[in-house]
Each structure stands twice: as structure tokens, then as C-alpha cells.
């Protein structure tokens, strides 16, 4: 099959042909000759969404750094390209060497978001790979999953031969070693999977058999073939040992995150009770300031980006963020490269930090108070007061910003109508200064998303608001959030519902995902989010979607993700849930000492050993 010829014929006809040409600066030019393990990484969404993903960039560079392996990439083509591929019988092929995906040894798919699950099915179909791991045999590609979705992979677990839970830096080496050994010794698929199941962080879904009770609940997920009852996530404890990609690929296309990425630290222990990332990536692991400075310089040399983003879950929490930001700004100014911080705390201090790094004030600032009322902010452990927010925005105004975006959620556990109205009241209040004077020219964009309970959080037991309830709250806000300088934005309620279903679902959801995929749902891409098709597929579910989404789960109910051990213990999460209901704050262990979540192997002692940093901050 000649993929070059195919592309030559169709590229002028499709949207954004640069999605398919490869050849980007720093992309791999390794050829298969003499190389042992051939791996292809897939992001199950469009190029411009997937290409920015830092995790895949890290793994791509690590695999290509090995002498005995190569890595290539593939993204999901847009529908115009999919149609042409199907019409000509062209299977999905890699960007680098233009080889059929199915002919690689390993396909690594990242699960970044629940709404890409239909795309995973589509990707396998386009590649001509059997959907179910059980249907693949000797000589077939090994389909491996990873990313945050792997912390509850059950809805799509049967699509994967293997899933890797947690940080990929070490795990990818183990995986490549294992496949190299299997190839060299001619080990069968089953032996390979049994060996994999013995490695930390490796989950082999086919080795676990679910049983369901009469009430529809999962009764058990029994391990077989010597697989462990629980799979402990991989966690790279010393990030300085695992360098950031020195030469990340520079896409031709404008991507969703069109700048160089400097991951300052991993994890966040602020302890917001709704936040899955905060729990599953614990503990906090900082990169050293010296390393970050030298990486930043190297990144600019290797990519030519005009902006470096200091990316982390809550970058302003880096223990030496002010000195780091100032140093980078000065060092990079000569090359006309600016730095940016994606997330700010609702604090004046954070605004100063943004002012330090950003000369152009036009781009706007974003704050996330999350909830409108103090009561609810206390419940979710968002330790920020109304006064903090007012001061922060006042300071941003003084510093020249006129466009400010606020993130809120509706549907948080325990929310009353009064809390929703508080979003409107607070937003209007923020148009005025500390002393109550109007702030002329200030534009507030109020973005309100719907809360989705996620596995491994304090709210994993909670019922999600029904679509009708959410729509009512959105209507309330659109009535109340009117005003000259206020813009109100909200998220689609069906998309949140679906996200909630897939987030806490089990293996019984797979047929619905497959059906939605076959019906052409290209989710996550709002233009084509196809709720009617989904509804058709969901109607056939037994138990129905309400069993998963709008039902409060029992304290001791078996969860489909119980076998995935993210470090944070279930008992700790339950305690957090109860403390939240009582409006009690839980302090960040970096500043107030270990609260015993379980994520550090040595618990509090680890934090005292310096993993959770307190030095250098006021």
C-alpha cells in the first residue's frame, strides 16, 4: 500500500493537511532497520489537541533515546480524512515512517479524558486492529494504555492488553525491555502478559474477572494467573533523574498549547476535594531550580518557541517560584522569549508573579474560585476567602489587566440554590474595588462548568446532578449574570453527564461506547458531540446510566477502580468527604505536615525528608 501516493492525492482536499505530513522539527528519523522494538504512540484526538501533550513527548523521547527501540506517532484523523481512508482501504499509519499502525510491536494510547473513549475505539478500527484484547493473538500488536484515564480504565479496559498506572518514565523502560525480551526469546503473548502483571504499575485487564451482584453493583474483581489484587501506581520519585524532553517536537500546526512546556513539579497537595489530579499524582515532586534553568535555555535553542509555559498543577506553589520566574525572565528576555504561568492562585502574590513574567496584559488572567459561596469553598477545601479574591483582582487591575476570567463549578456536593446565586453576586462584586469603587473597563468572563465526581477523590461516592438540575442552575445564572462587563459561559450538560458516566463506569459500558463510536460520535470535539446518538446507545444499558451517574454510592460499595491503588487510601478519602460535609479544612501537607493520605511510602517521614518542600517560602 502506498501511503505517499494516497496522501498526495488527498491532502489538497482535506482540512488542515499539515495534520498528516509529519516531518516536524525534532521528530524522529530513526528507521526500522536493526531496531528491536517498534512502538507507536497514539493520542485519540486530532493532531492539534494531541501534539501538545507533555506526557507523550516525554515517552517519545525516552524510547527514541534507546538503541534497541524506536517510537513514532499517530493521531486521530478528522472525518474528512477518515472518509477518504475508508474509501481507499487505507489503514491508519504512522506520521514518521508512514507504516501501518497494526504492524508495530506496541501501540501506546493515552487516556487523557473520558470523552475520548469513543475515539479509542475508532482508532483501533481505523488501524484494523481487533477491538478486544481477547480477540488478538500471537504476533498481533500489543495495545497498551496509560494517562489519567488509566486510574479507572474499566469502561475501556477490555480494549487493552495492558495498562500502565501512574508515571510513565520508568514503566516505559520496563515495557520496552519486556517486549524486547519476548521478541528475542520468542515468548508467547500469555507469558509476556504474566510477566507484565508482576511489574509495579502494570495492569492486565484480562487477568481480572468481574462478578456483579443482584443489585447491579460490582461484587468482586477476582485476579487470576497470579496477578496482584491491587495494582500500585508507578511514581517517579526523583524527577531530576528523568529529564524533560530536550528536543520536543515543534508542530507546524497551531496546537491548543502552542508553546514550550517546562514542567516545574508534579503533584499537588492543596487537597481540593473534587480534584482527581490532586489525589492521583501525590506526593509533590519538585524539579530543581538549576535543572529547570538549564532546560529552559535548551528548550528555546531546540524549539524556537517564543514562549515557555511553566506548567504544573498549581505552578505558583513551586517553592522558589519567584526567583525561578525572575531568573528565567531575565535569561530569556535577550532571546525575546517570554514565560507564562497557566494557573494562578486567587492571591495578590500570584498576580505579582504574573506581572513579573508577562509584559503583554492583553492576554488576560484566570482565577478559579471554584465555588461562589464561602460555605461551599470551605466544603471543597478551596482555601480562599472572598477578600483574597477581591484583593487579587484589584491588584490585577492596578497592574493593568482588564480581561479576567473566573472559573466556577455548579453541582458540587451539598450545593443549594443560594450557593449558585452567590456565583452571580460574587462576580458582580468583583467588578468593584476593595473599597467599593467601580473598576472602569474591567471585563469579567465567568466560566461555569458542571461538577463531575471522579474516582479516587473525596467525592467518588457522590451523586452527580441530573442534567435537568444543571440546566436549571445554568438558567438561573444566565438570568442573574447579566451586566455590561460580564460574560457568562457554561459547558454542555450532556457532555458532563457522559463524562460522569464514563469516569465512574465499569466494563458493562463498553458496548455503549462501541455503539456510539460506530454511530460516528467524535467526542471531545464539541462541534460533533453527538448526544442523540449517545442516548440511543445508553438506552440499552443495564443497569442504566442513572445507576452510574445520579446515584449516591454506599460507603463500603465495591468500586470498579478499587483495584487501582493510587496511593491515597480510601479511608482517607472518606474522611475527607466527611470533613468536607462539615466544612472543615484540611491543610496542605507541604506547609502543615503530613495528614496521612498514604501516598508517600514512608508517610510523614518522607515529607520531613524534604519531598514536600517548605523552604524558601514566606
Amino acid at each position, binding site marked *: 500500500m502506498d501511503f505517499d501516493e494516497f*496522501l*498526495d*492525492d488527498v*491532502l*489538497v482536499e482535506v482540512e*488542515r*493537511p*499539515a495534520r498528516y*505530513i*509529519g*516531518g*516536524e*522539527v525534532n521528530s524522529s528519523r530513526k528507521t526500522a532497520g536493526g531496531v528491536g522494538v517498534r512502538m507507536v504512540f497514539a493520542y485519540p484526538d486530532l493532531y492539534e489537541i494531541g501534539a501538545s501533550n507533555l506526557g507523550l513527548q516525554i515517552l517519545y523521547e525516552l524510547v527514541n533515546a534507546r538503541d534497541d527501540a524506536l517510537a513514532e506517532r499517530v493521531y486521530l484523523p478528522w472525518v474528512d480524512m477518515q472518509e477518504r481512508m475508508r474509501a481507499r482501504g487505507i489503514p491508519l499509519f504512522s506520521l514518521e515512517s508512514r507504516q501501518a499502525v497494526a504492524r508495530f510491536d506496541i501501540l501506546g494510547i493515552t487516556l487523557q479524558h473520558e470523552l475520548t473513549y469513543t475515539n479509542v475505539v475508532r482508532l483501533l478500527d481505523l488501524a484494523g486492529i481487533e477491538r478486544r484484547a481477547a480477540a488478538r493473538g500471537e504476533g498481533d500488536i500489543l495495545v497498551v494504555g496509560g494517562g489519567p484515564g488509566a486510574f479507572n480504565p474499566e469502561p475501556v479496559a477490555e480494549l487493552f492488553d495492558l495498562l500502565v498506572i501512574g508515571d510513565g518514565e520508568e514503566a516505559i523502560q520496563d515495557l520496552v525491555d519486556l517486549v524486547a525480551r519476548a521478541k528475542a526469546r520468542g515468548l508467547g503473548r500469555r507469558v509476556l502478559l504474566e510477566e507484565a502483571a508482576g511489574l509495579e504499575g502494570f495492569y492486565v485487564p484480562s487477568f481480572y474477572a468481574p462478578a456483579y451482584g443482584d443489585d447491579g453493583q460490582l461484587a468482586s474483581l477476582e485476579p487470576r494467573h497470579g496477578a496482584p489484587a491491587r495494582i500500585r501506581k508507578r511514581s517517579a520519585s526523583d524527577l531530576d533523574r528523568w529529564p524533560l524532553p530536550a528536543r520536543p517536537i*515543534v508542530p*507546524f*500546526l*497551531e496546537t491548543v498549547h502552542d508553546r514550550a512546556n517546562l514542567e516545574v513539579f508534579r503533584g499537588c497537595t492543596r487537597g481540593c476535594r473534587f480534584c482527581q489530579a490532586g489525589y492521583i499524582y501525590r506526593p509533590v515532586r519538585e524539579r530543581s531550580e538549576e535543572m529547570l534553568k538549564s532546560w529552559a535555555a535548551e528548550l*528555546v*535553542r*531546540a*524549539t*524556537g*518557541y*517564543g514562549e515557555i509555559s511553566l506548567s504544573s498543577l498549581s505552578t505558583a506553589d513551586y517553592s522558589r517560584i519567584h526567583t525561578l520566574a525572575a531568573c528565567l525572565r531575565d535569561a530569556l528576555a535577550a*532571546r*525575546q*522569549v517570554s514565560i507564562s504561568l497557566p494557573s494562578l492562585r486567587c492571591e495578590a502574590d500570584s498576580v505579582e508573579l504574573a506581572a513579573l513574567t508577562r509584559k*503583554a*496584559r*492583553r492576554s488576560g488572567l484566570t482565577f478559579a474560585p471554584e465555588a461562589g459561596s464561602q460555605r461551599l469553598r470551605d466544603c471543597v477545601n478551596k482555601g480562599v476567602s472572598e477578600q483574597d479574591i477581591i484583593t487579587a483582582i484589584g491588584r490585577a487591575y492596578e497592574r493593568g489587566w482588564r480581561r479576567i476570567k473566573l472559573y466556577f463549578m455548579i453541582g458540587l456536593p451539598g450545593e443549594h440554590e443560594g450557593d449558585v446565586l452567590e456565583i452571580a453576586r460574587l462576580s458582580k462584586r468583583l467588578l468593584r474595588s476593595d473599597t467599593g469603587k467601580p473598576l472602569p473597563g474591567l471585563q469579567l468572563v465567568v466560566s461555569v462548568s458542571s461538577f463531575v465526581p471522579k474516582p479516587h477523590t473525596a467525592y467518588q461516592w457522590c451523586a452527580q446532578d441530573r442534567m435537568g438540575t444543571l440546566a436549571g442552575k445554568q438558567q438561573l445564572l444566565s438570568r442573574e449574570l447579566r451586566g455590561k462587563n460580564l460574560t457568562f459561559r457554561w459547558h454542555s450538560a450532556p457532555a458532563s453527564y457522559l463524562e460522569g458516566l464514563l469516569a465512574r463506569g465499569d466494563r458493562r459500558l463498553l458496548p455503549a461506547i462501541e455503539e456510539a463510536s460506530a454511530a460516528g460520535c467524535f467526542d471531545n470535539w464539541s462541534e460533533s458531540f453527538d448526544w442523540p446518538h449517545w442516548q440511543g446507545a445508553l438506552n440499552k444499558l443495564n443497569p442504566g446510566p442513572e445507576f452510574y451517574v445520579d446515584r449516591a454510592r454506599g460507603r463500603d460499595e465495591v468500586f470498579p477502580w478499587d483495584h487501582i491503588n493510587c496511593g491515597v487510601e480510601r479511608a482517607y478519602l472518606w474522611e475527607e468527604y466527611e470533613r468536607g460535609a462539615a466544612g472543615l479544612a484540611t491543610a496542605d501537607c507541604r506547609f502543615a505536615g503530613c495528614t496521612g493520605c498514604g501516598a508517600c511510602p514512608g508517610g510523614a517521614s518522607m515529607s520531613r525528608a524534604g519531598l514536600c518542600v517548605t523552604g524558601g517560602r514566606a
Partner: protein
Amino acid sequence: MQRILLRFALRGDLKYLSHLEMSRAMVRAMRRAGLPLALSQGFNPHPRLSFWHALPVGVEAQEDLAEVWLREPVVPADAVAKLNAVMPAGLEVLEAVEVGEDEPKLTQRFTHALYIIRVAHAGQPRDARGVAEAVRKGFAAEDGEILNVEEDGQTEICLLASHREGGPQLRKLAEKTADCLGIGPESVTIVRTGLYDSRQSALASSSGLKEM
């Protein structure tokens, strides 16, 4: 401040880049090469870089032009070497020349272009004269002058176009050519071979081709 004219080529798969994508690739290469880019004034400063008219997606250029302003003077030949060391495959700087600060814009200095319209024909060779006639009949004056048609395994039509008033719609021209010859548009490709300051210099450069 130094103003530098860059002659460059855009080949292979990079012909599928949009104009914006190509210009971003160029800016990034300049940053990788460490050129001291001058920035524009204003809210959102960006490198001062301008291009000749945008090349349509799918058209290769053996010659395209850009101009960039630098804060500090560089030796043009050094800039070429540094840039080519960091360019993506398919973008190549052919030459750099210092330009006076008061020179008019690129699009005013370069007004004419030569194109080769290539028609792949599976197997059956065509008669050059017949092709020339068919195409000439189908083309309008604003599409440009057909200088030559050659038949050597594939048909090559050499076209001289004026870009004073916007220039020809190259994608449409490819379709038109296909229509004239009764073939599919995927068999027609267009390559720009050069940019010129007048019709005369374009003609001079194409001499060697016999006028038909």
C-alpha cells in the same frame, strides 16, 4: 536595524502548510538559529517579518521571498548557513541579501512569477501542441501567459503570471487545466520556479524555452 531579504524554497510535503504555518516555521527557525529578531511595537510585540504573496496550499515554490528586520547586523551568508542548519526538511534558504531600509515592499519590488503546471498522464503521452491549444482556449488573460508546453514523459506548461493585481488563482488553475484535458485534478501539480521584478526579466529567465 538591518533589513534582510531571504530567498527560500518550499518543497516536498511542506507545500501542504498554510501560509500561516509556513511563516511560524520560519520564525521558529530564526529563533533556533539565534538571529537577533527585531520586534514590532505595541501591545503584542511580534517579529518583524514579511512575506511575498501567500502561496496556496499544495503549490511548491523553488523560489519564495521573505524579509526580516534584525536588531543587530549579521553577515548574510552566515545567516543562511545558520538557518539551513535548523530548518525542517523542505524549507531551504537559498540566499540572503541586505536591503536598504527605504526600499518599497516585497510585493511592489517583485511583480511577476513563472510557474510550471505539471500534468501526469498515466501511460499515454499527449501531443504538446494539442495540449497547448486546449489549455490556451480554457485560460483567461488574467491567468497569465503560456510560454511553452513540453512533452517529455509528462506535460509541462510554463506560465508567466503577473501578481500586480492579486495574481492567478493557482488552485483553480490546476482544476481548469484538468478540465481542459479531461483528467482528474489530482494529476495536476503546480510549481513556482521564480519571482521577478518585471515581465521582461521573467521572460529573460525563461528564454531557452521557445515561445509558442
